């Protein structure tokens, strides 16, 4: 029973981290181009556009 005191917050915290990670990925535009991202993995580094 006593371990619930810390187990539940840990579970909630880990869930919350997952949610935050999702929010961050949404905000940083990672869902804008799902197909393109799949191809960019295969591109060589020198093909990366220079900023």
């Amino acid at each position, binding site marked *: 029973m006593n371990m*619930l005191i810390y187990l539940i917050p840990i579970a909630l915290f880990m869930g919350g981290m997952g949610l935050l990670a999702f*929010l961050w990925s949404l905000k940083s535009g990672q869902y804008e181009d799902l197909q393109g991202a799949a191809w960019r993995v295969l*591109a060589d580094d020198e093909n990366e556009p220079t900023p």
Partner: protein
Amino acid sequence: MTCCDMNTESVLAMSATAFSAEEIALASHPLGDGLRQLDLSVPDVHCGGCISTIERALCALPYVAKARVNLTSRRVTCIYRQEFEKRTTDPTGIISAINAAGYRAHLFTPIASENDTTRNQLLLAVGVSGFAATNIMLLSVSVWSGADAATRDMFHWISALIAAPALVYAGRFFFRSAWNALKHGRTNMDVPISLAVTLSYAVSLWETMHHGEHAWFDASVSLLFFLLIGRTLDHVMREKARAAINGLARLAPRGALLLISDGSRRYVAIEDIAVGDEIAIAAGERIPVDGMIVSGESDIDLSIVTGESSPVAVAGGSQVSSGAMNLTGSLVVRATKLAKNSLLAEIINLMEAAEGGRARYRRIADRAASLYSPAVHLLALVSFLAWGFFGGEWTHAMLVAVAVLIITCPCALGLAVPVVQVVAAGELFRRGVMVKDGSALERLAEVDTVAFDKTGTLTIGVPRLVTTTASDETFIAKAKGLAVHSRHPLSQALARSGGPAPIPFDRVSEIPGGGLQASRGDETYRLGNAAFADAISASSSDDSPFSEVVLSRNGEVRARFFFEDTLRPGAREAVDELKVRGYETVIISGDRQSVVDNTALVLGLDKALGALAPQHKVEECQRFSADGHQVLMVGDGINDAPALAAAHVSMAPATASDIGRQAADLVFFNERLEVVPQAIAVAKQAARLIRQNFALAIGYNVLAVPIAIAGYATPLIAAVAMSTSSIIVVTNALRLNTRGMRQRRERTMTATREVNAA
């Protein structure tokens, strides 16, 4: 990468619309710091090779700061410096760099920002409700596996705390839509959803306060989670289609070259052209506003405006309407109307008046809900009263009523329709058909009559040489030698046609509105319309289904060439297949009756109606629906737009006028017309699957509702029943996909076999 083998020359030939630097500047927007952002649509990108080719080509330009390809929406975002080394940059270099890499590029106006925010809000809501659902389910499982009373109470309280913000945040889409429906005295699927979610939360909270055994927090939140997934899928599908359609080449010009009284010329946006302004239109440009020709002679192509397939000669004093393409000579046109009052504006008015069938159409889910939700609410009320009066215990009665509401909450129904439609739209997407929204698929499945426009739909607006009468082979060769000098579509068709090699001429002059003229020794050759080339005898009658071009030597006719519009590939197969399946096929065209009759005869259509003005096309569509038919209208022109809006459901090719594409429910990118029967077949399959899904969902209710009414539906049973029904419905919807995959596999297998055999 073999998929990227694009021929640069063919791409350059295809991109008939060249953009001027001013036009590009109008389409781009400033970012500050002397940077401008230009969004281009590149419909041909489809793999990683394409991404790096385009990005490398653009970054090689010195003034480009950043270029990024979005493969999903097939767009390039390019940020460039307005000034580079003290000179204003010429942004046309960006487009020509993309063209040189072998891709078409079009300007487009980004209007999708609002849709993007809706999508992100939906995704966020899915994330939040998913977080809440998993955590609450974790706690609920512990409760179900037998926690003691104190732990159970604590878990219930934690669940309540997680569920409350999640319900408010993620449920707002449903609450808002349900409230809107109720305010207008209607009911939709969202009404029972909202009721079940809020009531179950309220009752669970009450139970928790009184240390009750059963709480439904997990049910109400996971319900929202499932439904939001369906709603997000639906939204993403529509957005994908919209992005693809917005990315097409814009046919209406953005601006025009204004002639100012001091003799200078300035490029202005089309909205800034006032009545009385004089504008210069070069050969190969589209006319931006309605007007009258001040000077110049030319032929104009009205195929997209009126559906007329042969070009019309114009000269000073003629009226021209916006959207027509200027073919041979340059013109100066005085604007007689503002852009917003032009022909296009009249068409939009007609469209708004015609929009009937579609607005009246109620989606199948809403029709189901209007029967389903009163029944369910009545059932819950009856079980509440029955348990209250006969059982005597009102709190228990309330619990039973809520259990009935949760069990019957249309979770499976809410997924039944969108999942099928998303899968069907994906299947059509692979065949090159964009579906703008789910209701279009429902309406397409009900169609029994197919009406085609002729020019641009059944035909592709490119003339083809049919017959030649010539006294001698050399005259054909000479005619071809003349024809290569013109961009008139008939001349180009003649130059392309097979037969003897062209005999070249040195000095060829083009007389706009007439034809071509050249001399060889003391002989004068003329190639053009009958009145121009053949000065002696009378021209042939006007109701021949063919367009005619005449070659004369010193005024004597030496050869005659007859052209007809080339049929769209697959047109015959499409019409045959539609007739085999028992659809009535009609042509509704603005072209001359004789031409329309000829096309109908060649393709074997049931009925041919020609010489129709836009409002007559609408009337024809309305007449069909008055006779109890459901019409699918397939058309492309500006003049088709009102009919596209009036028909039960409509399709347009990607080459259609801007307004035609906007009016249509489905847009096909495929060159071939066979996609029309294919799209109907997929829509029918989807409709069948939707009905099956409804049957499954209702069958599940028939099993589960008695358990709930009897008072045996614990939260555990509700959770299991709800998830299984959702999974069954989704799996059933995916069958559409596997069928499509099997067909594709068979196609590739036969193709390989044919290749191996050959």
